């Protein structure tokens, strides 16, 4: 009995270590080897009691044209092909069920389909920050994502359809740096 309990404990400990280790390895690989894209954003700031504070991010361009002959429902996973506009911001050019060959894409779930467009729930909806800095960051992002002053963006790395938010930029500056430099100025 004792040896069974020890064996079970060893298996549990191995799994407990493996789970975060695999997560770290997977996302580090994406950060290291993924292609870099910038997305325009719109902000809000909820509070997640379990994970600290974060800025809620909403990518401005988050829909793809409807796919002819394919009906999708809420929650269906699609591959959204990525393109870059003349200002250097990423947008979605097309959607497909299977991953496109040789083109960058992002896996995302369908939110709804309406009038020839499929709206997506993108896996880039938050950026965690120190709880003191997050409210300041939220205000800064809000000020810099209006129609008149749209200089806030998400910097993300994308590999094999998976995305990691690398940073949030304001005026091409990492948000933490921007807040430190502009404290008291704005």
């Amino acid at each position, binding site marked *: 009995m004792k040896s069974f309990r020890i064996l079970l404990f060893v298996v549990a400990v191995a799994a407990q270590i493996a789970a975060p280790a695999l997560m770290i390895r997977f996302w580090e690989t994406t950060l290291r080897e993924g292609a870099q894209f910038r997305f325009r954003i719109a902000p809000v700031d909820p509070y997640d009691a*379990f994970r*600290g504070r974060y800025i809620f991010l909403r990518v401005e361009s988050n829909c793809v044209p409807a796919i002819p002959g394919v009906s999708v429902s809420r929650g269906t996973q699609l591959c959204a092909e990525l393109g870059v506009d003349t200002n250097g911001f990423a947008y979605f050019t097309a959607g497909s069920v299977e991953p496109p060959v040789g083109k960058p894409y992002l896996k995302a779930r369908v939110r709804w389909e309406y009038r020839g467009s499929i709206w997506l729930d993108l896996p880039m909806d938050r950026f965690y920050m120190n709880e003191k800095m997050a409210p300041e960051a939220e205000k800064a992002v809000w000020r810099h994502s209006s129609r008149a002053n749209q200089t806030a963006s998400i910097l993300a790395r994308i590999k094999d359809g998976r995305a990691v938010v690398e940073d949030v930029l304001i005026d091409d500056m990492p948000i933490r740096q921007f807040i430190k430099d502009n404290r008291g100025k704005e």
Partner: protein
Amino acid sequence: MSRKQNIRWLLSELSTLVAQGVLPADAAERIRRYYGEREEQAGRRWAVVLFSIIGAALVGGGVILLTAHNWDRFSRGIRAALACAPMIAGQLVAAWVLFRRNAGAGAREGAGTFLALAVGACIAIVSQLYHLTDDFGAFMLTWMLLIVPLVYALDAVAPALIYLAGIAAWAGERQVMDGRAAWFWILAAALIPFIRRVLRENRHGPRAAVLLWGAAICACVSTGICLEKVVPGLWIIVYAGLLSFFYLAGSYWFNEEAPLWNRPLFIVGSIGTAIYSLLLSNRWPWNDIGWHHYRYGLEYDRIAAIPDYILAVGLTMAALALLVTSVRRKETKRLYFGVMPLVAACGYALAALTDRELAAAALFSVYLFVISIATLVRGFRERRQGLVNGGMLMLSALIVNRFFDSEFDLLTRGIVFILLGVGFFAANIMLTRRKEATP
């Protein structure tokens, strides 16, 4: 009388027995020392276990808050290490407890609680590190699967309770997202061997009590969450079976002399039956139920509804099997509460086949009236104040409920309320006098 009361009575009698020459003084002293020390030790042991669990939960919670602070100054590597550090520390402590001979329950429960919380914190903080989108279901499932072996490895109840709460939360999320919450039962089945072992060890002990309280409450909550509700009103049959099963199992396998705290199935089953009967004595639960109102649509899944039928049939059959056993053992007092699945089935058939909701509600009003009177009578016969008060409470709840159901004027309501109050006082005074009159 409970075991503790028996011991107290025995200890109080010792001086009389010695004075009357029935028992030698040294034998009386040995009895006093034996029972006094055992009670004291048991109390001390459980205080240690309780403090270990609370302490571990507080430290674990503090660690979660500290790591959630998001230490911007540190690099990602250091933050990843910080996220894993409490878990590694918890694993080392748990390993020390496991390899140590004769590790106490306090150490096992404390180590298990801390490690279970630290594993959750680690996964959450790693998700935070990479700004991952919140997937509560995947997070909960991963966390729970990683901690369930600790229940067996450390032989600890506290991680089992965390696991039960976690899989119930996961089921809630799954039901909202895709309606596939029935997997909850498979996850819950992982604890069956542990519950069996704890019950075999000592079914009246505190470990069994705490575990069964958690399991019974979790089952009551999760049953409602997991039902697909394709056949309207099937929950009436399912819950009637569940509560009766708890009541009969609690009566059948647990000593009646044990304190109520140590009989969670009986308490959840009997109080649940009373509240449930009160609920079903209203008209609204019986509206538009049965096969004629079968639900179609994207949000209803026929396959996912299969566990509903299995639960309805399985729980009813299990409760009826225990009911038949009670009849065979001539324990007729169990019939009143135990017969609820049959009453629910009759009510369901009545409402579903004939659309007579009022008749089904009336059936449960009569049923609640009968079990109230039966409890009251049994309380008087056995001179148990708790039962008398319980019976009065059920009766009052039924009357008050019917009262608000109908349009009685204020004067009538006032008189009935006063009569009910006087009834309570009279019953208690009568019982107290009868108890005092008993030599």
